Structures are given as structure tokens and as C-alpha cells.
């Protein structure tokens, strides 16, 4: 199995607050790894370190074999990243958003146009491509973002809470896209979520993160088996391993972020 993401004892503090307390895990090619935890657990902080946006305090992380600290430029060549907030430019059309990204990713000429068309189709956005993104629904924006992030066929895709704030239909639309990516490509996907159902449906391996610590990792089936009940829900699994209810967690900052995003989605 080809290991694409390798994380060892990764640590990060903000002032006195330790957000990530020595986390370790691996992701192999073709795997959808779900980082499951309540708001404030440290999911975004981990993603930001792996995408070279934030320097770890200590520990080691490699992405595609490159060290996130010392070979950041190389890491950026082989990753796709969709941040937590909805982050495409509303003042550009869907096509323009794709085109600018494709150019910045070094795609040229016919190959660029081919991939843009291909991905707009894959994301079911062909009809909306000429419209300003400002007029898109939340689900469409998310699909466009995923399209932008895989234009260069990255080896690993980071999705930070890809369905937060989306309505159930839009959420299922994103899940379908992810399932399609998983079936058809060897891309490794790291997805963070605080939705149990999402982790259960979309991921083939899950790491439960609580207060900056990785409590346990395994396939959904393995985790349920550890709980001693194959019919257990992810909620039961989470409570079993953390002694917490998933919904009980979350600090003010995290909640405010979620509200902020939901409001923007209307």
C-alpha cells in the first residue's frame, strides 16, 4: 500500500492552548480517511499543517513523501485543498474560477480546456458554468470547489468539513461526488467532519479526534466491533471512545464559524 500522508506526533499550540497534542496517522492511496471530531477538536489545525499553511511546533508530517515543513513547495504541487469556508470568488463565473485555477496549476492550451470541461461535467455544473458564482447554491459552490481542487489530478485531496451548513440534498450531492472520486481514482482523500453519518457513509477509515488527541483509528466496522456492537451508530462509537457526546463538544469559536458559514449559504 502506497502511503500518501504520514503524520507522526504532530503538535501545535496557539499561545497556551494546545490545539493538536501529538497526533499520528497514515493515509494510503485510494483511501478516504475521515477525521471525526466536535468543533474545536483540532481538525482544521491538522489540515492547515498538512497543506503548508501553518508550521507544526513539533512532530513530523510528509505528504506525497515530502516534508510539509522543509519541502512545502513540493507538497503544494501534489495536493488539492478545499477549506472549511466556502471559498470561490462570487464575482467570477464558474468557468472563470476553474480557468484561473487551471492556469495557476500550470495547465496549458487544449489540455486545460479539456480538463475544465471534463470536471464541470463531473461536478454536474456544465449548465451553470457561465453564471456568476454569486448566484450558485451552497451545494453547487462546494462541487465547484472540489472541481478546482482536482484539476491537476492531485495525489491527495484535503476537504475541511465539506458539507457543513449544506441542506440534506446538497450534502448527499457532495457525498455522491466523493463516492465517485473514490470509485474511480487512486486519490487519497482526507476529510474532516463532525457529522457521524458522513463519516460512516463516505469514509473507509476513520480517526476519532477529541480535544487535540487521536483517540482511535480504524474502519467503521472495526470501530463498531471494538465497541462490541456491530449495529452501533457512529454516535455510540464516539461516545464509547471519548466519554463525550459529539454534539456536546465545541467551543465558541468553532460554533461561530459554523454559524457564519450557514448564514452565508442562506
Amino acid at each position, binding site marked *: 500500500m502506497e502511503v500518501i500522508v504520514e503524520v507522526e506526533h504532530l503538535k501545535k499550540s496557539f499561545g497556551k492552548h494546545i490545539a493538536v497534542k501529538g497526533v499520528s496517522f497514515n493515509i494510503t492511496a485510494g483511501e478516504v480517511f475521515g477525521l471525526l471530531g466536535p468543533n474545536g477538536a483540532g481538525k482544521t489545525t491538522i489540515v492547515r499543517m498538512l497543506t503548508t499553511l501553518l508550521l507544526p511546533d513539533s512532530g513530523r508530517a510528509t505528504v506525497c513523501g515530502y516534508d510539509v515543513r522543509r519541502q512545502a513547495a513540493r507538497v503544494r504541487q501534489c495536493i488539492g485543498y478545499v477549506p472549511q469556508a466556502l471559498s470561490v470568488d462570487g464575482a467570477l463565473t464558474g468557468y472563470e474560477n476553474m480557468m484561473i485555477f487551471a492556469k495557476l496549476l500550470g495547465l496549458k492550451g487544449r489540455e486545460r480546456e479539456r480538463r475544465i470541461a471534463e470536471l464541470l461535467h463531473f461536478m454536474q455544473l456544465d449548465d451553470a458554468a457561465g453564471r456568476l458564482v454569486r448566484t450558485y447554491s451552497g451545494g453547487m459552490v462546494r462541487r465547484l470547489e472540489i472541481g478546482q481542487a482536482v484539476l491537476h489530478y492531485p495525489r491527495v485531496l484535503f476537504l475541511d468539513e465539506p458539507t457543513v451548513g449544506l441542506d440534506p440534498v446538497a450534502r448527499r450531492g457532495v457525498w455522491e461526488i466523493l463516492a465517485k472520486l473514490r470509485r474511480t481514482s487512486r*486519490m487519497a482523500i482526507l476529510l474532516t467532519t463532525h457529522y457521524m453519518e458522513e463519516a460512516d457513509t463516505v469514509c473507509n477509515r476513520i480517526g476519532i479526534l477529541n480535544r487535540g488527541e487521536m483517540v482511535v483509528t480504524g474502519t467503521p466496522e472495526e470501530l463498531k466491533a471494538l465497541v462490541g456492537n456491530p449495529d452501533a451508530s457512529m454516535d455510540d462509537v464516539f461516545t464509547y471512545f471519548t466519554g463525550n457526546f459529539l454534539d456536546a463538544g465545541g467551543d465558541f469559536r468553532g460554533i461561530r464559524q459554523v454559524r457564519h458559514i450557514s448564514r452565508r449559504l442562506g
Partner: protein
Amino acid sequence: MESDRFATSVAASVEPAAKSGGTVLQALTDMLVIIEMELRKLRHEPTELFTRAVQPVLWLLIFGQAFSKVRAFDTGGVTYQTYMTPGILSQSVMFTAIFFGLSTIWERDMGILQKFLAMPIPRAALVLGKALAAGVRALSQVTIIFLLAAITGIPLHWHPALLSAAAGVVILGAVFFATLSMIIAAIVKTRERFMGIGQLITMPLFFASNALYPISIMPDWLRVVASVNPLSYMVDFLRGALVTGQLTNWQADVGVLLVACILATAVGTYLYPRIVA
């Protein structure tokens, strides 16, 4: 059965599409793409170009008219309104550019900046591309001021070469102040603090310059401030190009602005990624 062409393409590709990367040419191309993006946004939302022109028009029409009656100092034989036209152009370009960093903070809050910083783009290309786009936007102010001067009969030197040179220096000035603004955004990080700093520095930069009056009438201490203020060099060049028609100090003016731009870009390139940390 997956009919998507994307699936087949991805399955067939072993390596991600690697950018050649690292070369100066690649950085320049990236910078042009950033500029292209900003101009496309502007094409979809052009209102900004008009709103940013309102303020200088008011300054010139009201303040300029009123003060033309007061003869406090020697304007070199032109009306005060004519004398202050390059000053008002520079001031309005500086005022808009100095708040350019707000968009950086907004893009950070939206997550847009995070995406760009996680892409294989040299930081300098990002910073300079953004700043140059701000420079291009400032051309709308140049256009409005020139139009206004033509309509109201402000006697500028309508020499094509001089007008083009003036436009070039306006871009240079806007690049400097926009980069300065991105540096401030990267340091203070929040909208509130940014607005505070922005308001704190614009007025002193304006009044401690030769925009409204010559440096020669200033007290010594103010002269020192005005002579390290890049705005003064922008005004000096524009006054030469548009009012007197004599570019006596152009090497110093352009030189100072260029050095200021290079320094600001270097600092900005270093600090810019920190706004997401």
C-alpha cells in the same frame, strides 16, 4: 458503470500535472494570471471604478475652486486648482490603495487566500499580482481626473508622452501603497484593527506631502517627513508631467518609488502568508 471522462483521465495519470515551477518566467506567468483574475472580477462588477472617482472630483471642484481665491503661496503662475490637481490625483490613488488590504482580510475570512497559499504559486507573484491589479484599477482615477480637467478647462499639459508617463507613475504609486496595505493587513490581521490603522495613517501621509502645498513652505520637521514620504515623489512627478511640463526630478521621483515598491514587495512576500496563520 462510470461514463465520466474524468475518471478515465485520472486513472490513466500516474503523476499529478507538475508545474515546471521555480523559474522567473513561471512566476511572471502566475502574476499575470492573478492580474487577469482581478480584471475579470472588475469587468463583472465595474461600479467600483465609478465610486472611487467621486471623492477626487469633489476635492477638485469644491476645495480647489474655493482655495483658488486664497493666494497663500506661489503656485508658479497657475491657478491653485491646477496646482493641486496632481496632488488630488495622487491622494485619491493613495487613499484607495491604502485600504486594498481589506480585501486581503476578506479573502482570508472567506478561505480564498488559504486556497491560493496552498497552491504552487510563488508568494511574490501573488503579492505583486494583487498590487499591480490595484495599480490598474487606479487608472480609473487617472481617467476621471483627466476628463474633469478637460471639461472644466484646467490647463494641463496634454502631451501624450507626458500623460502616459503620469499614468505609469500612478500605477507605481498604487503598487507601493497597495503592498504597504497588504503588509499592514498581514500584521494586524483583523478588519477592525486594519481600519483603525488605515484611518490613522492616511491623513498624515496626505498632509505631510506636497499634495496641497509646496515642501518649501513647511516647517523643518515636516519637511523631513515629507521628503521620506513616497507620496511626495508621486506628486512631484505628476506635477512636472501635467502642470509645468518639465520633468526636472524624474530620476529621483521614479527611483524612490521603484525602490519603495521593491522593498514593500520583499517585506510583503515575507509577511503575506502569515495572515492565515
